[in-house]
């Protein structure tokens, strides 16, 4: 207990003694984590938007002849059991005609036509744009199928966008993540390196390695943690503002409003700060400890 107090007070004293450097590293860590967070949020939102669009992709399965209600039920079950299908809705020729009449604004259409020229149809929605092709292929193989109608180009474009996001975003995100790690790691290392003299003297008077390590690890965690908390707050605040502006200027762009997702993202950023602070502190002091032990 006495020791824990000692470690924390040593860490705080150390940070205060090198306050300019500490402040600079907190700012650095904050900025890096903030940029990373912004990127993550943009990424999550673009994905969200693409997914929303995918959901509006529609496949129309046109049926042959006159299926019985049992046939319809059986087909409905088969459709739902296909991979990637989100929902399906049966539209009978009668319902189709009524919809058409409503759209044309000619309620008398039903009377004008002697027979209903429309087929029975299933409207199918998929979860992701990448599922469209496979679903269409399956449907085409069925004997009840007259025709499958879908926005081939739209599906392919969305698919391309999604691929780009997954690979491009993955690469960009990894680069950003690695540089964030390096910057924070190095910052913490610099802070510790400024203290080599102290470490040398601690070793000389018989401090154990763990005793030397602890204050530095605490310092790293404090630096990373403070940077992380600041980034967390700034991300939440600026996201709220960005959403406000976006939804008033471009109301048609879908954005994530679910706060749980946001907090999870920002929490990850904070955790990252803490972890890197810990790792940076440990690694740096380890290097200094190792140096004299050689020869």
């Amino acid at each position, binding site marked *: 207990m006495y020791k824990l107090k*000692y470690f924390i007070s040593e860490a705080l004293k150390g940070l205060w003694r090198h306050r300019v450097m500490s402040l600079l590293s907190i700012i650095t860590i904050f900025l890096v984590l903030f940029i990373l967070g912004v990127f993550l949020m943009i990424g999550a939102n673009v994905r969200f938007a693409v997914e929303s669009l995918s959901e509006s992709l529609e496949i129309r399965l046109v049926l042959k002849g006159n299926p019985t209600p049992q046939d319809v039920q059986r087909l409905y079950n088969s459709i739902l059991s296909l991979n990637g299908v989100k929902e399906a809705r049966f539209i009978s020729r009668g319902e189709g005609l009524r919809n058409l009449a409503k759209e044309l604004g000619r309620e008398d259409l039903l009377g004008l036509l002697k027979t209903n020229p429309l087929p029975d149809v299933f409207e199918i929605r998929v979860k992701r744009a990448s599922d469209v092709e496979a679903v269409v292929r399956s449907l085409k193989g069925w004997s009840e199928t007259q025709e499958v109608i879908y926005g081939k180009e739209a599906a392919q474009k969305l698919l391309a966008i999604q691929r780009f996001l997954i690979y491009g975003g993955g690469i960009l995100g990894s680069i950003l993540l690695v540089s964030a790690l390096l910057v924070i790691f190095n910052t913490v290392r610099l802070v510790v390196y400024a203290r080599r003299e102290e470490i040398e003297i*601690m*070793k*000389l*008077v*018989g401090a154990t*390695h763990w*005793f030397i390590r602890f204050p530095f690890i605490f310092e790293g965690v404090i630096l990373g943690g403070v940077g992380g908390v600041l980034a967390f707050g700034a991300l939440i605040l600026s996201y709220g503002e960005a959403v406000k502006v976006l939804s008033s200027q471009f109301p048609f762009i879908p954005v994530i409003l679910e706060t749980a997702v946001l907090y999870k993202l920002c929490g990850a950023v904070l955790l990252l700060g803490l972890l890197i602070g810990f790792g940076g502190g440990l690694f740096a002091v380890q290097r200094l400890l190792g140096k004299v032990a050689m*020869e």
Partner: protein
Amino acid sequence: MISFSAVTKVYPHGIVALRDITVNIEKGEFVFLIGPTGSGKTTFLRLIYREIKPTRGSVYVMGENLAKMKEKEIPYLRRKIGFVFQDFKLLPYKNVYENVAFALEVIGCDPDEKEARVEEVLERVGLSHRKHLLPYQLSGGERQRAAMARALVYDPPILLADEPTGNLDFEAARGIIDLLVEANLRGTTVIVATHNRDIVNSLRKRVIVLRDGALVRDDKEGGYDV
């Protein structure tokens, strides 16, 4: 207490700092280690507190073979050894009291005992009235006294001093040597590497002379020159 047996130390680039040294230092001895610059005095001391390992031969301190000592045990060896260096090695942002207390904090001493021991040792080296000053506010002699206090505060059985008077005038040097002699009278084994001819000659203690890494003289009550 301390024994070197056929110790050779070769630094990187093939620099031979000590060659085939065999020497025995008993508990309670006071030893001057002298020799021209580069003769291996500092190397000799660094071997004792296991800053470095011998290339060949073995070093025993209080019955332990340092070559076989595990990394983890080194801190406990160091708690039995006090050090004083020419450049004091005080932490610049801690005052005298804190610098001395640091040595006890590091070994996990409890706060009450710490305070009592620091006050006592500061009294002993005559720095009680300077305890709130930072190192840069002290004279060279006072700085070395602070370093002495830090070395003595945990009552080590062995005290090593590497040119402790190197940066001091005659008066201040005398004061530091008096402290070393006093520690020795209390039973501490003291080894002092020095270039200070007058002090070696006036004390008539055991003198070990190194030249180019070899032991060339070992006199019971020796002087600086033959």
